[in-house]
C-alpha cells in the first residue's frame, strides 16, 4: 500500500492549527467537560462553502472543512469519555462530525462543522 504520510506535513500543503480535545464526566446527570489544547500540523481545506441559511430570526452561517493529519482525530466516544475534537481554523471553531481512519495509508481524514452560527 502506498503511504502518503509525508504529504500531510509537506509545507506546500500543511499548516499548523490547534485542536481542543475534550474529556469529561457526568455530574448529577449532566455532562461536564474540560478541554486540552493540542498543536497539530496537517492539511485543511473547505469541504463545503460557507453558506447562509436565511431563517426568520436571523441569518445563520454554516460550513464544513476537511482535515488531514498524521495523528488520530477523535469524535465523541464513550470509551474515551470525551466529545468530538474541536479545531480552531481561521478564527472559527469547527467540531468533528466524521473521521476516516486511513492509517494504513499513513493519515486520518476528518470532517468538521462550523460551530458558530453568526
Amino acid at each position: 500500500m502506498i503511504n502518503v504520510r509525508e504529504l500531510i506535513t509537506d509545507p506546500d500543503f500543511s499548516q499548523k492549527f490547534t485542536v481542543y480535545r475534550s474529556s469529561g464526566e457526568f455530574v448529577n446527570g449532566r455532562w461536564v467537560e474540560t478541554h486540552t489544547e493540542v498543536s497539530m500540523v496537517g492539511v485543511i481545506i473547505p469541504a463545503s462553502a460557507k453558506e447562509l441559511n436565511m431563517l426568520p430570526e436571523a441569518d445563520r452561517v454554516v460550513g464544513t472543512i476537511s482535515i488531514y493529519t498524521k495523528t488520530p482525530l477523535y469524535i465523541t466516544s464513550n470509551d474515551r469519555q470525551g466529545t468530538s475534537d474541536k479545531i480552531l481554523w481561521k478564527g472559527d471553531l469547527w467540531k468533528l462530525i466524521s473521521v476516516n481512519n486511513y492509517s494504513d495509508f499513513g493519515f486520518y481524514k476528518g470532517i468538521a462543522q462550523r460551530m458558530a452560527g453568526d
Partner: protein
Amino acid sequence: MAMRTIAEFEDILQPIIVDILDWSVSKPNDVRIGWETEGPPAFKITDDVIFIMAVPIDHQINRQQDVSYDEGSPDLLETRGMTRVMGLNVIAYGADALYNLKKIKTAMFYESVRHTLSAEQIFYIPDTIEPRRAPEPGQGQWWERGDMQLQFNELLTDTREQNAVESVDIEIDRENGVNIEFTINQ
C-alpha cells in the same frame, strides 16, 4: 421562589429518579438530562440508562395569576403566583427499560417522593399513561427502549417591588379666592 428555569426543574427531578431506582451508589449519573449542548457520549446496548427532558405543557390553568401585596420598605412587595404544567419526558434504554419506567411511575405515589416534590412546590398529576415499549434500530441491532411522560403542577412565583404612594398634596382653588392646601399621608 423566583421563576424556576427548565434546567432547574430537571435538576430537582434527576436525584429523585436516581433514588427511586436505587442507583444512588451504583450509578447516580445513569439518569441523564437530555438535550445537552455538547452532545455527551452515548452508552452501550447493555446499559440501563434513563434520559429525562422537561417540556412545559400548555393548559388553561397556566393562564391564571394570583397577585398579593405585602408591606415592604418603603414600597410594596408584589407576589404573582401561577401554576405551570410541566411534562417530564422519561426515556429508558436497556434490558430493564420498561421495568424501570414502571418503577418510576409507581414511586410518584410514595409519600417520600411526594414530600420531596411538594417541598419544591411541585405536585405530581396522577394521570400517567402506561409506559410505551418502543425498541429502536441502531448499529444493526434493536435497542430496548421505553417512553413515558410524567406531568406535574408547578407553583411559580414572581416577586417584585411595587412603588407605594406615601403622601399626596392636595390644592383646592375656590372661586372666592380662598384656597385650601393639605397633605394626605399614608
